[in-house]
């Protein structure tokens, strides 16, 4: 029954070994003179069994980071280490790595081939990896049931017959088809209604326990990240500005940018509603980022020297780091 090809890849480094380690990852687009540093020296780790949320404004490099980790685009620099092993030439082959890391995209319609039935879409990857037709069919049925869709009725349907929430469930089932250990969720609920969003989030929580998964959850919705994530990473203009446990970071944001993001959430209490925007202006052009701390032109508590010195990530408290001069000095 168990196909050696498609059982989950066993844990190698033990529970203390981070599942995913990203070191100094960079991706620059464009030619000399107008280089866009979409991702610029990003380092972080995803522990086994945790959900790491990545938040930031549009264009801050969240999606580029996810595609770099998936190996869909080539990095300009840095490396990805999966369960203690370097990914790429000389280390873990990309084919082995890709079975262990899968992705769910934001646009549930564009991520399903309109000419394939739901069953064919989910079964595509197992078939590519050599699973027999019967075993694939059985797996497709199990996966559809796991994401809450009646297998008999959905396997033979086409994507345009499904609602957005149902399609996103199918995408999640497809991501699970290779029994991965890490799933990158790139804005998986951003295009869904609020009620459907809640169902899909609950489903994700359940699946994580059932399949022993770790998540990298990318979103611009701070409430969603607070609900689902264990730790949060805040990106600004291709760099990490703050990373820490979700409670600590939401209670006392150490970086002014994180504080502004949190303050921009609409409050349920009318008395607490603010009239002035916490953050003004657009993010600067990444072709020509500001000198020193990249956030200083928009920072409310900017000091002398912010435009010269690049602040390193410094400890705020245990496991909570922020890249701001005020953290280093305190």
């Amino acid at each position: 029954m168990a196909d050696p090809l498609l059982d989950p890849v066993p844990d190698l480094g033990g529970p203390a070994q981070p599942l995913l380690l990203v070191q100094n990852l960079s991706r620059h687009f464009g030619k000399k003179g107008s280089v866009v540093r979409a991702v610029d020296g990003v380092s972080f780790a995803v522990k086994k069994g945790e959900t790491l949320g990545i938040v930031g404004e549009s264009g801050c490099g969240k999606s580029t980071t996810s595609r770099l980790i998936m190996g869909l685009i080539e990095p300009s620099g840095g490396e990805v280490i999966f369960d203690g092993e370097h990914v790429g030439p000389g280390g873990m082959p990309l084919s082995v790595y890709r079975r262990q890391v899968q992705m769910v995209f934001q646009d549930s319609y564009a991520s399903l081939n309109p000419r394939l039935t739901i069953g064919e879409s989910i079964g595509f990857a197992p078939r590519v990896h050599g699973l027999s037709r019967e075993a694939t069919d059985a797996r497709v049925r199990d996966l559809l049931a796991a994401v809450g869709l009646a297998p008999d009725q959905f396997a033979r349907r086409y994507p345009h017959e499904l609602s957005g929430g149902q399609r996103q469930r199918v995408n999640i089932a497809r991501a699970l088809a290779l029994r991965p250990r890490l799933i990158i969720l790139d804005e998986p609920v951003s295009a869904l209604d609020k009620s459907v969003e809640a169902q899909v989030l609950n489903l994700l929580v359940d699946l994580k326990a059932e399949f022993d998964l770790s998540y990298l959850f990318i979103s611009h919705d701070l409430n969603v990240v607070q609900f689902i994530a264990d730790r949060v990473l805040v990106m600004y203009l291709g760099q990490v500005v703050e990373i820490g446990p979700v409670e600590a970071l939401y209670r006392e944001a150490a970086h002014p940018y994180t504080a502004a993001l949190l303050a921009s959430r609409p409050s349920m209490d009318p008395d607490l509603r603010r009239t002035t925007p916490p953050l003004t202006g657009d993010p600067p052009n990444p072709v020509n980022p500001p000198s020193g701390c990249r956030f200083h032109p928009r920072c409310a508590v900017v000091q002398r020297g912010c435009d010269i010195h690049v602040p390193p990530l410094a400890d705020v408290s245990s496991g909570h780091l922020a890249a701001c001069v005020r953290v280093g000095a305190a």
Partner: protein
Amino acid sequence: MSEIASTAPSGLIQAPARAPAGYWSGVFKRLKRDRLTLICAGILLVMLIMILAAPLIAPHSPYQGSMIRRLKPIGFPGYPLGTDELGRDMVTRLIYGGRLSWLLGITPVVMAFVIGGLLGIIAGFAGGWLGMLIMRVTDVFYAFPSVLLAVAISGALGAGIFNAILSLTLVFIPPIIRVAETVTTSVRVLDYVESARASGASVFTIVRVHVLPNVLGPIFVYATNLISVAMILASGLSFLGLGTKPPEAEWGLMLNTLRTAIYNQPLVAMLPGLCIFVTSICFNLVSDGLRGAMDVRS
């Protein structure tokens, strides 16, 4: 936020009760509602049957003329559409003429669809220097107006049906390459192709399963659109003496030889033109109808 109420039913989500609808059954359903497309397709079908069965249904010989019954008007006894400048029956000539006109209209497009589609999909999916090379060579062909290019190639190769088909094929390859490249590029960046790459599938598998089925439709629709252009160009080549040669019956050639009679029998002289006009309009409308029916979201 931690106590999000689950509004999902406790069991599995059930799909609506109607039967699963495949892609093509949806296309046919939409086509059935499109009366104009159906009428045009019907006209084309009748034409096709007539030209295939030409020897069986044609009342006279297409080549046997008579000096005493030249240029008879429409409605002449025994010759319902009159006779041409050599006294040959117009009904017979038009039916036989359709054979060559259709051949010259469809064959180049089919050949260009295969060659141009292949090159365009390669250019669109591979990108990089290979795509660049294919597209820049295509641009060179684009520098010439299609009529001029067809005339130039036909002129260089000499008159004849085979040469006319060859020149028309060469004329239609560049626009099909361009459409195929554009469609492939737009499909290549979609998330389901990314997802297939992330699953570790080979390039060949991705193209076969995810790219081809989604790009062939639009390219096919564009190619059917070109059939009418091919017919008109083929007629033009024949008119200039570069396509078919007398006494062969072909609509463009008939239009050419009958032009001397335009003052004596204007209605008869216009008949081949009317055939070209009706056929190309029908092909265009069917192609438009297909495009509409193949759009899943409509």
